[in-house]
């Protein structure tokens, strides 16, 4: 799918405050200034949106042009002389700041944006030393008006930069927010003030350069200097959006987007962004609990591991390993998933292990070949049904970008559409991408085959459920396929078959890592695990699993551990510890799994930390080598690392 190498763009050399800088032709002066290391203040300009040049903050001197020019909307030319620090520019900025602050309420002490506000920062840096406007003479607007249950609007703080309006036009396409009225009366609003309904509202406070749009969930919660930011991956789905986890007093208070142009393009969906309270849950499993003999008693985690290992060994002495099974979850890290399949396959010796309910016959890395970013390069993207965008909402924004900014054809078809009549609807006979949810992978294969016959180059992207469903598959936490999609001689039972066997009393022991929402919602789940005589469970939260375990080991949420996860497109990214475990907290899940395996006689070569464990993974799955830094795994026959 790699595009033909385009000729390098022609370079243009200009000077910014006397410093020479070379940039590709067509670059905007603002970007050239940034490259030259010269900061030019902006409010309206945004890297992901087209320039409008309305805030006037970036006006600078260009050559002999008589008037100041907006750096955000002026294209560089060879020999251009840009001056950003002259007295004239500074005088202008001072005047512009005075205009912007004319009716601003100056309510910074109660504004959520205080401390990370461009209006504050630029007023400090470029503004006049004192105001000539009496506070009583200001024009007032609505304050603290909910635009929805997620977003609060303060029209007085707004500086009319158009960013939210352009976001709704260029990025989501719902065109829900506009500027109404005219001149000093102009306000940001929705039609008739009706609530926003879109699934991407949480990006609005991030594009807002001031405190006009704020998160309801973050209202009056913190100041930025009290927050600790941890770069990580959003656990909401398998799309792999990079996030900053902002925490305070060892609780997560918000997710912020981190611009990863290959994945999220700096946008998060509301489900992911506002899903953080899950990480602050109070119904936790904090100590190990044993009820192997007699009533439940709390013990140390490693002591519980030893007891669980003895109980498992007892089962294995009396029964065939076939009567033991392992169930993981797409919420585990790669290291944990790899370790669990080692524990099941190599140590216990059972072929029955899985992380999901349904079987995935004929699984091969080729169905994940298309990268998210490559969706923009496809002439046509065929999307099967509504499930891909329901499972990974940010995909919608990438598709809209491909359609709107790149002029690509996005063909949304019913999941059960007839593939044979599809070829005629594909506009250009060029590169075609087929995007499908994992539940429709058979149909996606049929569509891809039909289109390949007519069009040639067809690549697929399959969207998996759960944060790390892809990693669990890559690393062999499923029956019949070992790490790296290695076909195994012994077929095993998939998740649903394991539950059925358990319910019928055919399993003597289960090792389960939770939480696994897909399984736990299944009506058969509870009856199945209740029937197994020995359930060794590792889970961070209370629920069905913790209730029915004879050996319950304390797990960690994704905010409390480190490791790697693999997104649907095969990108291997790190998650990091955002919430520090308290002193005396149980060891990480990976260590507990390794110790369990060792106690049963298994050999695990490296120290059970995420980083050395990743090296063990790379030895078993060579495609994972070279993915450090958040790259896609390079599977043989599916193109190189990207």
């Amino acid at each position: 799918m790699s595009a033909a190498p385009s000729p390098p763009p022609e370079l243009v050399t200009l000077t910014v405050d006397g410093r020479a800088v070379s940039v590709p032709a067509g670059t905007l002066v603002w970007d050239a200034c940034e490259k030259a290391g010269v900061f030019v203040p902006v409010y309206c300009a945004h890297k992901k949106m087209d320039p409008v040049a309305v805030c006037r903050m970036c006006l600078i001197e260009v050559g002999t042009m008589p008037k100041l020019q907006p750096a955000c909307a002026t294209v560089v030319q060879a020999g251009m002389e840009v001056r950003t620090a002259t007295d004239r520019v500074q005088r202008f900025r001072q005047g512009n700041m005075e205009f912007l602050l004319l009716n601003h309420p100056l309510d910074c002490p109660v504004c959520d944006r205080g401390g990370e506000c461009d209006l504050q920062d630029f007023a400090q840096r470029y503004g006049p030393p004192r105001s000539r406007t009496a506070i009583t003479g200001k024009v007032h607007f609505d304050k603290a008006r909910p635009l929805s249950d997620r977003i609060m609007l303060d029209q007085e703080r707004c500086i009319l930069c158009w960013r939210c309006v352009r976001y709704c036009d260029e990025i989501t396409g719902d065109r829900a927010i506009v500027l109404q009225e005219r001149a000093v009366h102009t306000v940001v609003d929705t039609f008739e003030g009706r609530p926003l309904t879109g699934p991407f509202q949480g990006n609005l406070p991030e594009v807002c350069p001031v405190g006009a749009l704020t998160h309801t969930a973050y209202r009056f919660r913190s100041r930025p200097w009290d927050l600790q930011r941890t770069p990580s991956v959003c656990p909401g789905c398998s799309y792999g959006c990079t996030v900053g986890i902002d925490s305070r007093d060892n609780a997560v208070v918000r997710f912020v987007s981190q611009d990863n142009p290959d994945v999220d393009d700096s946008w998060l969906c509301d489900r992911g962004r506002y899903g953080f309270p899950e990480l602050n849950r109070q119904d936790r499993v904090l100590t190990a609990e044993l009820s192997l003999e007699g009533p439940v008693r709390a013990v140390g985690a490693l002591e519980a591991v030893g007891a669980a290992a003895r109980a498992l060994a007892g089962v294995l002495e009396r029964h065939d390993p076939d009567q033991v099974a392992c169930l993981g979850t797409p919420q585990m890290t790669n290291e944990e998933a790899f370790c669990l399949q080692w524990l099941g396959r190599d140590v216990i010796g059972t072929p029955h292990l899985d992380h999901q309910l349904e079987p995935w016959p004929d699984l091969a890395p080729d169905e994940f070949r298309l990268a998210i970013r490559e969706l923009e390069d496809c002439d046509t993207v065929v999307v099967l049904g509504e499930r891909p965008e329901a499972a990974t909402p940010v995909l919608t924004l990438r598709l809209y970008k491909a359609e709107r900014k790149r002029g690509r054809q996005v063909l949304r078809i019913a999941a059960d559409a007839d593939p044979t009549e599809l070829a005629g609807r594909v506009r250009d006979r060029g590169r075609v991408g087929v995007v499908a949810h994992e539940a429709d992978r058979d149909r996606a294969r049929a569509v891809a085959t039909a289109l390949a016959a007519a069009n040639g180059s067809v690549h697929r992207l399959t969207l998996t459920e759960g944060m790390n469903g892809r990693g669990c598959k890559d690393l062999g936490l499923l029956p019949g396929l070992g790490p790296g999609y290695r076909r195994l001689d012994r077929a095993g039972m998939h998740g649903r078959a394991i539950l059925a066997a358990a319910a019928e009393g055919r399993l003597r022991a289960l090792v389960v890592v939770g939480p696994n929402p897909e399984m736990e919602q299944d009506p058969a789940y509870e009856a199945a695990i209740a029937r197994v005589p020995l359930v060794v469970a590792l889970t961070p939260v209370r629920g069905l699993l913790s209730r029915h375990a004879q050996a319950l080991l304390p797990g960690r949420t994704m905010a409390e551990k480190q490791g790697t996860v693999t997104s649907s497109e095969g990108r291997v990214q790190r998650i990091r510890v955002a919430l520090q475990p308290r002193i005396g907290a149980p060891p990480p899940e990976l260590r507990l799994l390794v110790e369990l395996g060792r106690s049963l006689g298994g050999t695990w070569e490296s120290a059970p930390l995420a980083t050395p464990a990743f090296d063990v993974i790379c030895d078993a799955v060579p495609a994972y080598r070279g993915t450090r830094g958040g790259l896609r795994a390079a599977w043989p026959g599916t193109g190189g690392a990207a």
Partner: protein
Amino acid sequence: MAEAAGPPAAATPLLSAATRERIRTACARYPAARSAALPALWAAQDQLGHVPPEAMAEVAAELGIGAAEVEAVATFYAMYFRRPPGRHFIQVCTNVSCALRGAEGLLRHLEERLGIPDGGTTLDGAFTLESTVECLGACGGAPALQVDRYSHEDCTPDRVDRLLERLRAEPGPTGAPR
């Protein structure tokens, strides 16, 4: 998401078939339907006398753009009414030339004489007064005001009083229809 967000259409549409036809004709004159927002709003206002939010939503649906976008246009321009206006619409220019020639005093005189604030409508429904029109392009005859579709220049309180008397007798808006 590419669908323009808007409220569901009213059970009984406000816009008549003739108005919709006018909107479609206007659309055909432009490469993009959104460019026809102004003539489309005129069509709606000519039929209904004003443009209520439901009509904006119908115009938006007709043009295939967001209801909020139509509202943005309708609120930007002073000549679209969001509430039913009086029989006569008086717009007073208060820009530089007119201001220098006493427009503020003229506006206050009108407010007093009609008993309504700027932007208001008299209780008998005869007059709506506004000064948000900005320049009427009649600086040579400042202070100027516009009533319905007629322009009145060199206005003084006396002349305005006589004008109001004449207008009270008129049954409907003065001036040629568009």
